[in-house]
C-alpha cells in the first residue's frame, strides 16, 4: 500500500471533502501559505481564496465566525494554528459551539470541525506544547478526536467534516511528518471506534496521539522479555469506545493508561475511573497511569524530557502491573 505522511493524509482528506461538498471551506491563520505544518499548502490554488480564508490573528473571531457559518448552511473547517491558542477563544468553544444546539432545543445543526495542532514538539515550550484535550471532553456537546496514524487521521477528518456536530480534531505536531499506509480508496472511520494497534495477551496499554507510538516502542521492548502488550488507540475521546477497551482489559486483566497531558485531571484519569467503576472485577492488578508531570512545558531539552512520559516509563509501568 502507498505511504503518506499525516500532513499529506490530512491534506488529501481536505481536498476530497472540499471537492465533494462546496459548503466546506477552511478558515484560520496562515492557511494559504500552509505554515507551519504544511497541511493546507496549495489548497487556495486548487479551490480559490474564497474557500481558503486567511484570517487576522483573532482566535475568538475565527471560531465565532465558524459557528455563525455552520448554523446557516456552511461547513467550516477551522484551524487553531496551535491548540494552545484556543485559550483565546474559550467562550466561543465552550459557551457557544458546544451548547448552541442544546440550549436552542435542537433548532440548529453545527457542522463545524476545529483542527487543533497539539502536544509537545522539541523545545516549543509552554505556549506551543500543551495537551488540552481533557478540557473539551469535560464540555458536553463536543466530539473530541485524536488520531495517531495517517490513515486514521484521513478517515476521521472526512467523517468529522461530514457530521452535523462540532468536532475538536487534535493533530499531534510530532506526527505530521510520520509516514504510514493510507488506502487509495475512500475510507470513512466512524467516530467512537477504537483500534487495536498491536494485539497482545498480557497487558492492555491504552494510549493517544504520539503516545501510541511510544507505547508501541515500549511493547517491542517488553516483547523481548516475553511480555505481550496490547496497544489500544481509542482514536476518539468523545464519543469514547468503552466496549473495545473493556474487551481488551477483560482479556489481559491488567491496564496501563498513557497520555502526554499533565497528569492531574487528564483524560486518562477518567478512563481509570470507568474501568474501576464498571469492570473492577476483571482486574488482576491496580490500574496504572503514565502522563506528563504537572508543570508547564519547560524549554530546555533535559527539562522537557523529564516532564514528558518516556518509553522507559511505559515499560516500567507495565512491569509493575504484570508483576
Amino acid at each position: 500500500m502507498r505511504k503518506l505522511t499525516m500532513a499529506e493524509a490530512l491534506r488529501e482528506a481536505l481536498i476530497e471533502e472540499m471537492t465533494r461538498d462546496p459548503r466546506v471551506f477552511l478558515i484560520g491563520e496562515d492557511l494559504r501559505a500552509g505554515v507551519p505544518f504544511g497541511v493546507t499548502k496549495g489548497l487556495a490554488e486548487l479551490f480559490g481564496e474564497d474557500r481558503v480564508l486567511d484570517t487576522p490573528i483573532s482566535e475568538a473571531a475565527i471560531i465565532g465566525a465558524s459557528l455563525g457559518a455552520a448554523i446557516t448552511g456552511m461547513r467550516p473547517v477551522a484551524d487553531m494554528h496551535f491548540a494552545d491558542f484556543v485559550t483565546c477563544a474559550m467562550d466561543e468553544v465552550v459557551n457557544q459551539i458546544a451548547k448552541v444546539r442544546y440550549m436552542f432545543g435542537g433548532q440548529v445543526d453545527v457542522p463545524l470541525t476545529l483542527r487543533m495542532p497539539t502536544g509537545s514538539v522539541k523545545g516549543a515550550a509552554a505556549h506551543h506544547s500543551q495537551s488540552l484535550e481533557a478540557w473539551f471532553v469535560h464540555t458536553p456537546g463536543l466530539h473530541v478526536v485524536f488520531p495517531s496514524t495517517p490513515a486514521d487521521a484521513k478517515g476521521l477528518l472526512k467523517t468529522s467534516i461530514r457530521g452535523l456536530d462540532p468536532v475538536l480534531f487534535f493533530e499531534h505536531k510530532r506526527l505530521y511528518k510520520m509516514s504510514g499506509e493510507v488506502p487509495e480508496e475512500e475510507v470513512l472511520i466512524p467516530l467512537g471506534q477504537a483500534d487495536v494497534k498491536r494485539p497482545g495477551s498480557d497487558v492492555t496499554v491504552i494510549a493517544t496521539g504520539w503516545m501510541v507510538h511510544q507505547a508501541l516502542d515500549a511493547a517491542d521492548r517488553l516483547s523481548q522479555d516475553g511480555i505481550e502488550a496490547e496497544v489500544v488507540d481509542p482514536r476518539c475521546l468523545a464519543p469514547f469506545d468503552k466496549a473495545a477497551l473493556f474487551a481488551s482489559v477483560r482479556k489481559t486483566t491488567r491496564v496501563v493508561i498513557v497520555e502526554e497531558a499533565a497528569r492531574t485531571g487528564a483524560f486518562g484519569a477518567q478512563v481509570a475511573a470507568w474501568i474501576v467503576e464498571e469492570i473492577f472485577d476483571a482486574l488482576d492488578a491496580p490500574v496504572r497511569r503514565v502522563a506528563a508531570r504537572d508543570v508547564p512545558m519547560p524549554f530546555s531539552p533535559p527539562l522537557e524530557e523529564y516532564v514528558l512520559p518516556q518509553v522507559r516509563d511505559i515499560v516500567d509501568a507495565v512491569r509493575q502491573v504484570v508483576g
Partner: protein
Amino acid sequence: MSISAEKQRELLRSMIRIRAFEERVRDLFAAGRLPGFVHLSIGQEGVAAGASSALRSDDYVLSTHRGHGHMVAKGADTARMMAELFAKRTGSCKGKGGSMHIADASVGVLGANGVVAGGLSIAAGVGLSIKQRRSGQVCLCFFGDGAANRGPFHEALNLAVIWKLPVVFVCENNGWASSTAHRYACAVPDVAVRAAGYGLRGVIVNGMDTLEVYGAVREAVERARAGGGPAFIEAKVVRWQGHYEGDPQGYRDRAEIADGKSRDPIERLGTKLAGEGACGTEQIAEMHRAAQEEMDRAVAFGESSPLPAPEEALEDLFAAQQ
C-alpha cells in the same frame, strides 16, 4: 428618508407588542411564577422594533441577554416564547434555553446570548455564510455598551470589515453594563467612535425615537445587501428597569429613569401619528387591546403547557445520540 404611514403603524404595533410581552414577564416574575432570571427591555422597544422592521423575513438577528424584544420584533411566536420562560417543553427551546438563550431559527433569530459580546463574532460568520451562499440576506447584530469593552467586539468588527460582510452592528447603549456606568467603564462616551478604528462610520441615533432607528438601519441594511459591507449604529436608550428583575438599582439616579420614562418611544410615535391623522387614538387603543389579548393567549399557553420530562435533559446534545 420618507417612511410610509403604514410602516410607521407597523413600528408602533411592534413596540406595543414588545411592551405588552415584557410587562407580562415583569409581573409574572415578580409573582414568582417564572424560574431563573430575566432582563427586560422596557423603554428600549424603539431599537428592537425599528431595527427589525428594516429587515426581510429571511434575514438573521443575533440578540443579547436582553433579547425578548428582538425576538418579538423579528416575528417569533410569543406563545412559544412565553412557554419557554415558563420552562415548558412547548417553549421555543423546549425549556432548555430560558430567557437568556431564547432563539427561534425559523424567523432567523440565532439566539439571545448569556455572554456579553458573544454574538458579534457569530454574526460575522453568518455574514460570511451569506456572502458564500450569495443569498442576498443580511445579518443584524444587537449588543450593548458593555460589549464594546470586550475583545470579541474588536475581532468581529475587524473581520466584518476586511471581508466586507453584510452585517449591521447595532449597539443599544443604555448607559449601564449591569451596575457599572458606561461613563465610568468606557474610554469614550460614544461607542460609535470605535467604529472609525475599523474604517466604519459610526452612526449615532436616538434610540427613543424608533423612526430614527428605522431610518438608519434601513439605509445600512440596503447598503449591506447591495454588497457595501458592514455598518455600525449606536442607539442611545434608557433602561427603565433594573439590569435584572429584582435589581434594587441602588447605584442609579432616579432622575435618569424619570427622564427615560418622559421619552417613552411608544408615546412619542403614537402622539406623532395621532397628530398627523395617520393613526387615530381608537386605532392605537385597538393595538394595545390586540397586544394584551395576544399576551393573554401566550400566558395561557405557557401556563397550560406540560413541563419537560426529566430525561429530556439528555436530548438535543448531538444530531444523532451517541
